[in-house]
């Protein structure tokens, strides 16, 4: 106890130096925490985005993930309704579930035959209400209400397309897409001939006031190979062209109602889906849910080679981005750790030189070498602890200020700027880890000077000028 008092008072001796050391550590800890909070928020935002669009887990044909995109129809899940019922009724899974919904992916060619243009597209057939429910997921309490699928409330043959698809199909005018370059002469033709469809779409939309994006509309044909390889065509009313952040997706995506997608691919045959999307209340439940799902698949659906995939596997960019942030975070933490190491080490070394006579005096009075070591170690740790407290407090304060400043930024792959948020409050693991790390580094850097002080020859120390 006396050592602690002595250490604390010694720190007040050279106030300016102690404060400078404290400041260096405080700023370092703040930098680590704010960057951690920023990248942590991005990771959670990314995760939220993926979980909202593709759930936590998907049950797919074992080979679908690797080979399915070439011919989705060949990897359909038979009897998927029973699978969904089984999952929803399962006593282990039920308490974890928010949504279980089927989707059907399909490849095809979308054409605006009025304008004589077409392109290959990747379609997904979805159950709109359940997709909207998926989008409600907000376990990390991001601000803003979940946006409904633009397909909501549309006719059975309604569809939405990426703005890139709209551009190629020359439907920007009809769909009110802004910033959409068009070849001038062709655009003239297209807008003339497209007028009747436009009106028709408006008419359909007006019967359904819930449709949010139905001021505009266009008709396209979607040509796809059915399950037997024969071509099949569906006429779709495009209710909206949606900007999708990733250009590759924006240029190719089309979303339609599951029923229509199934008719297109399976016609009169038993309808199948390519995936059953399972969304959980909390991401932490994923391992348990996955294990249970696999057990169910093995015991009750062994006729089909089904597998469970998690969102990180399905969206490799998640792992890439979180990995990148982890690497940057690690780099910053190591850099700051090194700065702390040298700052504290330097401060302690200077203190030892200044207090050499005092060290000799303490030893003369009967303090053991270990006591000297503890004293200086204690001073280093106290400096670290004080910096941890100020660093944590200031990081929380600054995070609050940033989060309420109204600053925005444009994340990669996003179509709209989002609020700049640093998630520090509530990230107890990061807070505790960084503070402990700081303490550890401070203790480590005080260790060598403390050892040196304790090993001083007493007589030499007392003679020190």
């Amino acid at each position: 106890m006396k050592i602690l008092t002595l250490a604390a008072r010694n720190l007040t001796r050279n106030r300016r130096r102690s404060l400078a050391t404290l400041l260096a550590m405080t700023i370092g800890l703040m930098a680590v925490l704010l960057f951690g909070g920023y990248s942590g928020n991005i990771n959670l935002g990314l995760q939220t985005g993926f979980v909202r669009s593709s759930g936590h887990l998907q049950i797919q044909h074992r080979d679908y993930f690797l080979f399915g995109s070439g011919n989705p129809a060949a990897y359909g899940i038979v009897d998927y309704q029973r699978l969904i019922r089984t999952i929803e009724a399962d006593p282990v899974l039920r308490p974890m579930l928010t949504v279980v919904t089927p989707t059907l992916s399909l490849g095809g060619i979308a054409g605006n035959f009025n304008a004589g243009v077409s392109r290959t597209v990747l379609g997904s057939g979805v159950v709109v209400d359940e997709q909207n429910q998926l989008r409600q997921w907000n376990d990390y309490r991001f601000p803003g209400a979940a946006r409904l699928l633009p397909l909501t409330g549309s006719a059975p043959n309604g569809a939405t397309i990426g703005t890139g698809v709209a551009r190629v199909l020359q439907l920007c005018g009809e769909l009110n897409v802004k910033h959409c370059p068009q070849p001038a002469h062709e655009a003239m033709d297209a807008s003339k001939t497209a007028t009747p469809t436009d009106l028709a779409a408006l008419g359909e939309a007006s019967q359904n006031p819930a449709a949010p994006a139905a001021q505009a509309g266009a008709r396209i044909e979607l040509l796809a190979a059915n399950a037997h390889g024969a071509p099949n065509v569906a006429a779709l009313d495009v209710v909206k062209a949606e900007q999708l952040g990733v250009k590759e997706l924006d240029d190719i995506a089309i979303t339609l109602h599951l029923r229509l997608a199934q008719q297109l691919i399976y016609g009169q045959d038993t309808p199948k889906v390519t995936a059953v999307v399972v969304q959980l209340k909390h991401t932490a439940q994923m391992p348990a849910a996955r294990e249970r799902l696999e057990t169910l698949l093995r015991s009750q659906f062994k006729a089909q080679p089904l597998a469970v995939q998690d969102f990180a596997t399905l969206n490799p960019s998640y792992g890439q981005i979180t990995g990148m942030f982890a690497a940057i975070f690690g780099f910053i933490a190591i850099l700051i750790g090194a700065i702390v190491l040298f700052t504290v080490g330097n401060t302690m070394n200077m203190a030892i030189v200044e207090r050499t006579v005092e060290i000799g005096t303490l030893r003369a009075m009967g303090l053991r070498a270990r006591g000297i070591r503890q004293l200086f170690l204690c001073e280093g740790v106290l400096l670290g602890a004080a910096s941890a407290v100020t660093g944590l407090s200031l990081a929380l304060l600054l995070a609050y200020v940033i989060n309420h400043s109204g600053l925005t930024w444009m994340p990669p792959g996003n179509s709209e700027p989002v609020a700049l948020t640093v998630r520090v409050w509530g990230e107890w693991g990061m807070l505790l880890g960084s503070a402990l790390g700081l303490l550890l580094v401070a203790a480590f850097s005080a260790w060598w000077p403390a050892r040196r002080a304790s090993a001083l020859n007493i007589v030499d120390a007392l003679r020190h000028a």
Partner: protein
Amino acid sequence: MSILQIRQLNKRYRLDDISVPALTDIQLDIQPNRFTVLSGPSGSGKTTLLNLIGALDRPTSGEIILNGQPLSRLNDDQLADFRARQIGFIFQNFNLLPVLSAYENVEYPLILAKVPPQVRRNRVMELLAAVGLADKAQHRPGQLSGGQRQRVAIARALATNAQWILADEPTANLDQATGAAIIALMRQMQHDLQVSFIFSSHDPQVLAAADEAVFIRDGRIVESRTLASQTHPERAYA
């Protein structure tokens, strides 16, 4: 109370590659309960001898037996514990801990000796009163004069009831009057507490107050004598 025995003591300092003798063949008994002064010119080896007696340093050869304990048999931690209990130090520059109050400075060796808090409290106040600083207990060294600091240092040296108090030129940094007052105080404490003081000094005032004087020159004892004028009958010792 036993005699301090110094036997065949040699101390050489190593300077770069050569070894310089600081003390040569010191053979000396110091009686307890006395005021003993080690006298000699600067550089004669007084501090070196005091440091060896105080178990702060190890001799090149020879032995010191203090309170029946041959110091050469103790390891570093044992020496520290020995100092904590058996020896008190008074320094030329007072060497108080600047961040501690007068009270805390006197208390510190008691904490090292693991004395319980209540006992500590009484002892510290008693000693501060004895050195005339009861009202300065909460002052830090920086707020005290040189004489006052040395008084605190004397109280600190006496705190643990150590039998031997070693003082290296305790008056060298004080003016004549203050030095005289400090010598009188030490004399008084030595008498009241029945402890043994060993000084190094070339201050004639100190020499005048001593019971025993050991004269050192170039690391050798040139003379050792009892100063008759200071021999008090009640302290006559067999």
